[in-house]
């Protein structure tokens, strides 16, 4: 499904009929409105739509009787007989109009909350500004929102330059529309950011469904573009694991701002959902007071692990490692290990290898996933493991660790303290992240 299409060329299968009419919100706003009996009512100021529908149906037209009049008249749709004409004629008589209308709970206001505002484009995974709203009137007289206009022609049209440009260009056989491609984004990829008065649950439902399709890294990138009120709203719309992953992907700067803004309970839930080394990474960059407050709010076990990680020197193996390691006893058979890997959580496989330890948690050896696949299922782990794996101490600098990964083509490596006890594991993706961070540090001017 292409995200960008030509205005007239993309009829929406769900709602389109042969004689459907497309038009833009900007063509409608500020139009003079008359009632069924021809009496002047005022001007159109806003349109309310059903936010919970895939292509929101117009529910209410808001009309202001005079320039300074405080009261707006709500006209329940369907009301308009002729949409894109100079004057808008209502399908109700003057006395059928309501004064001081109450907004419906599921209603989203197109002018106040969509037009000229930023929205999240979940298809392109970015933040865009809405230049216009593309609407459709079906043969059944229903009016629905189908696209938002995010292209340059939309700006030209709203500036009122389309016709003058056409007049100038016509003698040479050109049209203003031909110069830049019209860019329309289907409403199904739109997450509004400013639907302030929508009921909280509804807004989350709609947004959650669409945001769930994005990768945490994409969500993090989107959040960088938003302001400090919109960011927590996005985070709230995600389920806990996704919110935690997204938080881990953000820049340290934004992590600080967000964690300062979130309440401590929610922040600690997010942090304890992350892998301990990720949580430690986040906490490490925070100002001391905030860090202390958040660590003390963590569940005791998590707090201990994280504090331990934080106690290591920055850029040492201990500060990067993941202390949660999938281990087996020397006597475990290969079949049993397979079984545990198959049924266990994703983290087991993400280590690329299985660490073999004795009862005191002393490192005995390492079995790579590749060796496991090829091994005879009945043999015990100690017979297929590498008995002398490359390992490092927690205090060893990451620079050396990276060199080891390069030299021995490692995918993962155990961290062992002086007594031979297993402390954690570093995987190749930890090393890549560490190298990339270093690049950032050296690339800047400081």
């Amino acid at each position, binding site marked *: 499904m292409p995200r960008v299409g030509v205005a007239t060329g993309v009829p929406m299968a769900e709602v389109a009929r042969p004689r459907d009419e497309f038009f833009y919100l900007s063509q409608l706003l500020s139009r003079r409105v008359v009632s069924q009996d021809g009496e002047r009512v005022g001007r159109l100021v806003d349109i309310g739509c059903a936010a919970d529908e895939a292509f929101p149906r117009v529910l209410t037209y808001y009309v202001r009787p005079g320039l300074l009049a405080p009261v707006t008249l709500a006209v329940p749709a369907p009301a308009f007989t002729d949409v894109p004409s100079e004057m808008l004629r209502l399908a109700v008589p003057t006395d059928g109009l309501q004064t001081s209308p109450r907004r419906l709970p599921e209603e989203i206001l197109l002018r106040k909350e969509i*037009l*000229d*505002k*930023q929205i999240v484009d979940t298809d392109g995974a*970015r933040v*865009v*500004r*809405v*230049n216009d709203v593309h609407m459709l009137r079906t043969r059944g007289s229903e009016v629905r929102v189908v696209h938002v206009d*995010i292209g340059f022609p939309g*700006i030209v049209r*709203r*500036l*009122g330059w389309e016709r003058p440009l056409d007049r100038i260009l016509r003698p040479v056989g050109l049209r203003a529309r031909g110069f830049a491609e019209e860019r329309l984004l289907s409403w199904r990829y739109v997450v509004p950011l400013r639907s302030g008065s929508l009921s909280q649950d509804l807004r989350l439902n709609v947004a959650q469904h669409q945001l769930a399709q994005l990768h945490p890294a994409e969500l993090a990138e989107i959040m960088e573009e938003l*302001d*400090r*009120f919109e960011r927590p709203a996005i985070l709230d719309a995600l389920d806990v694991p996704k919110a935690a992953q997204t938080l881990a992907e953000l820049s340290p*700067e934004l992590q600080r*701002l967000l964690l*300062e*803004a979130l309440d401590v309970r929610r922040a600690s839930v997010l942090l304890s959902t992350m892998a301990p080394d990720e949580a430690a990474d986040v906490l490490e960059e925070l100002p001391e007071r905030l860090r202390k407050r958040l660590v003390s709010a963590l569940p005791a076990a998590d707090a201990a692990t994280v504090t331990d990680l934080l106690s290591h020197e920055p850029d040492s193996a201990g500060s990067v490692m993941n202390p949660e390691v999938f281990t087996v006893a020397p006597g475990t058979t290969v079949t049993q290990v397979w079984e545990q890997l198959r049924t266990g959580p994703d983290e087991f496989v993400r280590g690329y290898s299985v660490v073999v330890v004795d009862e005191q948690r002393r490192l005995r050896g390492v079995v790579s996933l590749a060796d496991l696949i090829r091994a005879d299922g009945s043999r015990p782990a100690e017979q297929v493991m590498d008995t002398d794996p490359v390992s490092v101490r927690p205090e060893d600098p990451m620079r050396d660790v990276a060199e080891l990964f390069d030299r021995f083509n490692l995918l993962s490596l155990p961290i062992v303290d002086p007594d031979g006890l297993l402390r954690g594991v570093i995987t190749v993706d930890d090393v890549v992240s560490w190298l990339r961070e270093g690049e950032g540090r050296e*690339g*800047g*001017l*400081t």
Partner: protein
Amino acid sequence: MRQWLEGRWRRLVVLGAIVGPGIITANLDNDAGGITTYSLAGAIYGYRLLWTVIPVALALFVVQEMSSRLGVVTGKGLADLMREQFGVKAIFYLMVALLLTNWGNTMAEFAGLAAALEIIHVPRLVSVPIGAVFVWWLVTWGTYRAVEKVFLMASAFYVAYVISGIMAKPDWGNVLVSTVTPSFDMNLPFVVMVVGIVGTTIAPWMQFYQQAAVVEKGISTRNLREARLDVAIGSLMAVLVVWFILIACGATLHKAGIPIRNAADAAHALAPLAGRYAALLFGFGLFNASLFAAAILPLSTAYSVCEGMGWERGIDKKLQEAPWFYGIYTALIALGAGAILIPGVPLLKVLYLSQVANGILLPAVLLFMLILANRRDIMGEHVNSKTFNVVAWVLVGSLIVMTLFLTVATLLGRA
């Protein structure tokens, strides 16, 4: 007592984290154009215009405090806010005016750079291209944080003017009296000079820049007081520099009756009167100010325009991701620097055009800001207070009258 000290200390630490946007912005506005105007004012009228620094400081504070507060409370840039509240038409024409104004301003910065380096015999064919490339490189390759640090340091170099002011050995008693005694002549050149001082100190792009910087820093409403202090310190620093330039030129050039045409002339003419070092310092100040503003102006303009129009922006974006942003940024530097190098470009016409665009832009921006800062649905409890509003409307009103006056004078070719 200990608790009190700790409280004080904490406040200072918080302030340290907040300080920046206000000080940088306020110092930025003492750019090449500003220094030229102040030098001329000092050389022609001596100490008679010293009193203007007091109302200028007040106006600067009021305007910049509003844009800082708008940024803190809404978390949005000024162009963003205007687009959302006033629609695409208003913002589009404002941004066209901003581009024109800032093209002229960028030119003035590069002209200032060229003039400053000509004092030490570097030809402009060398200094301007190198300056342009340096500025472009600094901003496209540095991170915002690093760039900000460089600029905070650059702010400190304004002390060059303070020193050259002192080296000019002014009559301090006279200086202080003149500072608190307004004097006014009802003739056109005098009025134009007063308006010019005010006009170069309060420029529309500063409001856009400062609000963006405040948003970028993520300053929250809890730290509104510190943000306000930042603006106050910045405004004071800015007018202090103006004050010392007026003194330096007044004590020497005005007294000796030496006519000058621009800031580089002033630096030259200072040498026999205040000593060679004072002259060099004056020239160095001009160099620093021009480079500083030449870096920020095009960047801030590109950022505001893209923000208002909804185009991708930011120095962390790739060229393909943000073509408009880099296009506008690069074009402003290239056209600004190029106009000075290419013979036959009608510099004065561009500067006139820029001044006229500014005359339309500044009143519009100030009015929009006042409206926004009074909207309870946007600012909540942080709307302008009654007293603030009275002062703000009076100041903004006079600024608008002055700007329109200057614009008309420019159009009539008298300025």
